[in-house]
């Protein structure tokens, strides 16, 4: 997949961000404790751009997605922060006026489609709400959408039920439903995780095609660094509810600043010589059950020093020109220097 260098891309787009998230905090109140699932994250998505959000299970990726779509249920709530989408502050003004302009694609297509209605019925439901189409016109448009997402024999398959679709085809149908809303931003919450690898590549290609045709911005959420490398223009690495590093994709892969990013990259198969064991990150993501008081990655970090365990690291800009920043006290220093400090 070829694309212009991220620096160029950002530079040519002098326009306003499509989606701007500032200091978003989503918390869940349980009987025992308050869980800060998303703890003050900020990022922007520009029109036509693909932004990756990458992190382990439990790092707050999906909660971020649900917060952007206004789908946080009780006992959770957006406690603080701004989500500005096309000059509407969604947290304050509510999502109702912007419904459909942000669409979401879920991980498991078999769960995202209601098994008791035909695929056509479910596409028509969205068409009816957003384009006012009913009856034969809606059916025709539904067939067009199914063809647009590459489902063969669409006029027949439009009347089939979800169980008659394979995983890849079902995910295409889910994408067709979200296209029926005519969105500007597509939030893809691990859209390929439940699919096997060949299908995964097809779906990624489809998303890239659609992005160019419909000028969609995409927020791509995944734990798979390989997928991120292929799709995203920019990557935000999330750890325990905080964004620890944000950079253009190529730069993040070639020159990571946060030790967590480094560790993630090392654990991609293929980057390690064949005869060596794949490195893993020991331990697991802590549950952020209180305000952060230290670097949350410190317990697992190979570079951690006392300072890491005593104060929250600032997010420092590594390179202003490409908006590369990292939340680590060592950010911006050469690895060699760190070695000496250790």
């Amino acid at each position, binding site marked *: 997949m070829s694309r212009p260098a991220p620096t160029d891309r950002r530079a040519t787009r002098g326009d306003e961000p499509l989606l701007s998230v500032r200091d978003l905090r989503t918390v869940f109140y349980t009987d025992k404790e308050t869980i800060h699932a998303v703890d003050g994250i900020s990022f922007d998505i520009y029109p036509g751009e693909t932004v990756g959000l990458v992190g382990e299970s439990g790092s707050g990726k999906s909660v971020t997605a649900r917060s952007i779509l206004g789908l946080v249920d009780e006992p959770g709530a957006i406690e603080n922060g701004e989500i500005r989408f096309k000059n509407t502050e969604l947290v304050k003004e509510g999502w109702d006026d912007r419904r459909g302009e942000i669409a*979401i694609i*879920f*991980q498991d297509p078999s769960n995202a489609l209601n098994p008791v209605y035909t695929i056509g019925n479910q596409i028509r439901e969205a068409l009816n709400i957003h384009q006012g189409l009913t009856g034969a016109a809606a059916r025709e448009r539904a067939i067009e959408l199914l063809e647009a997402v590459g489902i063969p024999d669409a006029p027949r398959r439009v009347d089939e*039920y979800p169980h008659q679709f394979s995983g890849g085809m079902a995910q295409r149908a889910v994408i067709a439903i979200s296209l029926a809303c005519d969105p500007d931003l597509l939030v893809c919450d691990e859209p390929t995780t439940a699919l096997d690898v060949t299908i995964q590549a097809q779906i990624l290609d489809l998303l890239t095609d659609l992005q160019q045709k419909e000028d969609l911005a995409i927020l791509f959420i995944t734990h798979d660094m390989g997928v991120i490398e292929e799709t995203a223009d920019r990557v935000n690495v999330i750890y325990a509810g905080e964004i620890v590093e944000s950079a253009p994709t190529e730069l993040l892969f070639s020159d990571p600043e946060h030790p967590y990013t480094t560790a993630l990259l090392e654990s991609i198969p293929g980057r390690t010589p064949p005869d060596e064991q794949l490195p893993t990150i020991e331990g697991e993501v802590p549950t952020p059950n209180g305000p952060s008081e230290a670097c949350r990655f410190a317990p697992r970090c190979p570079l951690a020093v006392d300072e890491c365990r005593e104060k929250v690291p600032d997010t420092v800009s590594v390179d202003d020109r490409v908006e590369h920043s990292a939340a680590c006290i060592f950010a911006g220093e050469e690895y060699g220097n760190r070695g000496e400090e250790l």
Partner: protein
Amino acid sequence: MSDAMSRRERVVGLTSNLDTTLSAWFAVGVVLFLLQAGAVGTFFTGLIADFVGILPTADASGSLLASVTELFESLQRQSRSVPTLLSRDVVPNGGYWNGEEWVGTFLGLSPAVSWAIRVGLVYLYSLTWVAWAVFGYRYYRREIRVADWTPRDDMIDRFLSHKWGLFGAAIVFFFVVMAVFAPTLGPTTVEQNMRNSYAFEISYWNDQTQTVEQILVGEANLNSQSRGDLSRVMPMTYDEYGRFHPFGTMPNGRDLFTFIAAGSRISLVIGLLSVGVSALLAVSLALVAAYYKGRVDLGTVLISDGVMAMPQLLLLILLTTVLSESWVGNVYSGGFVLALIFAFTGWTYMWRSIRGPALQVSERAWIDAARSFGQRPRTIMRKHMLPYIIGYVLVYGSMTLGGAIIAISGLSFLGLGIAPPTPEWGRAINLGQDYVDTGSWHISLIPGALITLVVTGFNALGDGIRDAVDPQSDSESAAAGRGGGA
């Protein structure tokens, strides 16, 4: 895929054939309906006239309600004059012996045979409707529907292979037909035999004088009482006046079968009304609680706990007594109030049972997908959540209906609930309880056995539906959701 293609071609090729079959099917439906159209019209116009007439201001002459009542009563008279196949007039059984032959009965047959023919016709007619519906469904599934299979098909197939559930469905079918055709099925009518027995005169063959004589029904009843060993009219026998009693007579000489048939209707109406209202409450609250979760859910839990804490039986006794003088207390001989009390105290159990499934389905991604593209909450609940809990509603509804029938009978047995002389099964048991150990044992035994059978039938139907809806539920060990009496 190729299979589906050839299937579609076959369907297209058979279009003309399909049309004839379909129109034949519709024609059969219309003919079946026309056979009874008069009765249906009579029922509905009568229902509306009764309902309007019951409203508080309907008594005042010249008021709008009074004229509306009048209108529907005249409509009822008109629809009564429409001939129907299954009426008492077509197959009469109320004749007399004139010394040589039966007069006034169907084709001069004996009253017992005439009555049996009428009952047979009623059930034949009902079974024809069932066959018509089954054929229509099968035909739709095989030839008309494009999809080879839908998730509902499995449920129906599972139910059809569930013997206990089918047994329940059969019992429920017999009960419902009895309730629907109650006026036709009885060997005599409630009006003639019970309400106004001194306003009707019948002819009979007097053995001693060897002549046909006249007697008032009320007086005839006095001489056909079942009270113990000496004076009794047992099931499937004639009394002294040539009247056939399929279930014998009651202690006051009235016909037990007519009483039970009419009572089945009131049991079914109250049961359906109470289950319908409580299902409506339970489903709405479960959907709202599951959709909004959190505080809304907590609120409904508190409300239902509060309602559950009320003593249902005391409330029933209190309200039926307090409301017995008011207009609403007289609607349907007090049955309307009973149904409402059952509904407003009973919805909590159904709500508890369907809240879990509702919460489960509310977590599915398609709910979030619909929310994300801006579907209205009410539509999401109805379209994307309701189909998943409707099966549970059927299960608990069926079992609660059995419970309601027991409860109504129990109250009538205690002398509460349905006001006499409106027939109710529980009152028949009560009337017969003094004669249980005598020769007139049939008075309590028959309605008692019927209640047991019908309630078992409803529970079996519920079991069958549950196993069909949720194949993982184990019918052997599951003890959930039995209907309970008040």
